């Protein structure tokens, strides 16, 4: 078994505080049962499962959190939120990570890059929903 030494200083604490502020959740409520990841319809497409991402937030590991694809794959179906035994709004944590990134880099999806054909065919509900989640 190998160990990894992590840094835990002011920068890490600030990151945790910001995620808690945006989401309104106490990140330390999570005791890592894994129910969110077990019931997630998209776990197989995430490079870190939902509970792994929460663990990284608990340790303030900003780089590892923001470089994961977990929060981008999350489609806000809220299954994790209604099932969490600690009553954490897990989906709000995913949203907080998205927002944290989007407030610095507001274009995860570049509207200009979407094919014109798609823009014409896709229903409003998909476009508006996507832009609300993927742009700042």
């Amino acid at each position, binding site marked *: 078994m190998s160990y990894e030494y992590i840094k835990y200083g002011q920068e890490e604490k600030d990151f945790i505080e910001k995620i808690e502020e945006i989401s309104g959740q106490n990140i330390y409520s999570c005791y890592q049962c894994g129910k969110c990841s077990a019931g997630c319809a998209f776990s197989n497409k995430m490079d870190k499962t939902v509970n792994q991402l929460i663990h990284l937030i608990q340790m303030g590991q900003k780089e590892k959190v923001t470089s994961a694809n977990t929060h981008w794959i999350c489609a806000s*179906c809220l299954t994790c939120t209604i099932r969490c035994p600690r009553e954490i709004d897990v989906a709000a944590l995913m949203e907080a990570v998205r927002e944290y990134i989007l407030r610095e880099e507001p274009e995860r999806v570049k509207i200009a890059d979407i094919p014109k054909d798609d823009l014409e065919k*896709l*229903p*409003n509900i*998909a476009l508006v929903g996507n832009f609300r989640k993927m742009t700042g």
Partner: protein
Amino acid sequence: MVKYSYFPGCNLKTDARGFEKSAIAVSKRLESELVEIPNWNCCGTVHTMTTDNLMKRIAPVRVLARSRKHVGELNDANNQVVTLCSMCNSTLKIVEKEVREDEEKLKVINYQLEEDEEEYSNDMEVKHYLEILRDKIGFEKVASAVVKPLKGLKLSPYYGCMLLHPEEAKIDDEEMPSVLEDLIESLGAEVVFSPLFKYCCGSYHIVEEKDIVTHQVLKIVQAAIDRGANALVVACPLCAYNLDQQQKMYMETTGRKNILPIFYFSQLMAVAMGEPLEINHFEDHKIDPRRLLKELKLEG
């Protein structure tokens, strides 16, 4: 005739016009008319889960304020705004609860509405039309309005996420709902249970990650086919689009034959109650449900 202030939302005027037209037609038959709010705006589609962004909450509160005004103009209406789209239902319900519990939030939002001489004062209730059908009209009345029982249709209800999540917005038990099942039975069709009844379809990822949606859709459809369904029933225009479009795409690229047509619950009601078939706008669907209806002699 009871009247309800009805909020359509953007998709019911475009891709899902058959959903709206069929629902309005059956609502008249059931003596509980859905009357559209004049001058409505988009609710914002997906609800923001951030605590510090009131901007994204202005649109839904404006909808509530306009609906309140509309209710005052209707005879025989109560303080309820009714939606058909499950996404609108969820967004409006969540925000309604948020501003009811946080006066400070409402005050700031009302300050934004002042410009249009509008104000919201926490006196509306948001209802999905399925709740009206279950709690106000009753499925017995629905059953008595049926002139053509939907014999031969084996329907698997697909709730999607937003009818059942989160706690503030759910219209039924989040893990074992029954409202669509009860409706289907009252129309004389057979209910086929699928365990993936609320397995997320991929939602807005259809814009930038289509493969995710395709993967979800194939699983949802296959689960229903394996249990003997010949169609899916939905209440969300985005679920409907994803299920319909990605099945068609997959069929065209791989030659897959196992596909299921998608019905909005109100379209099934309209067919069973003998409304003209045209109001359902089945021609908008990517997989034409009329083939199945013809096969089962339910078309005319």
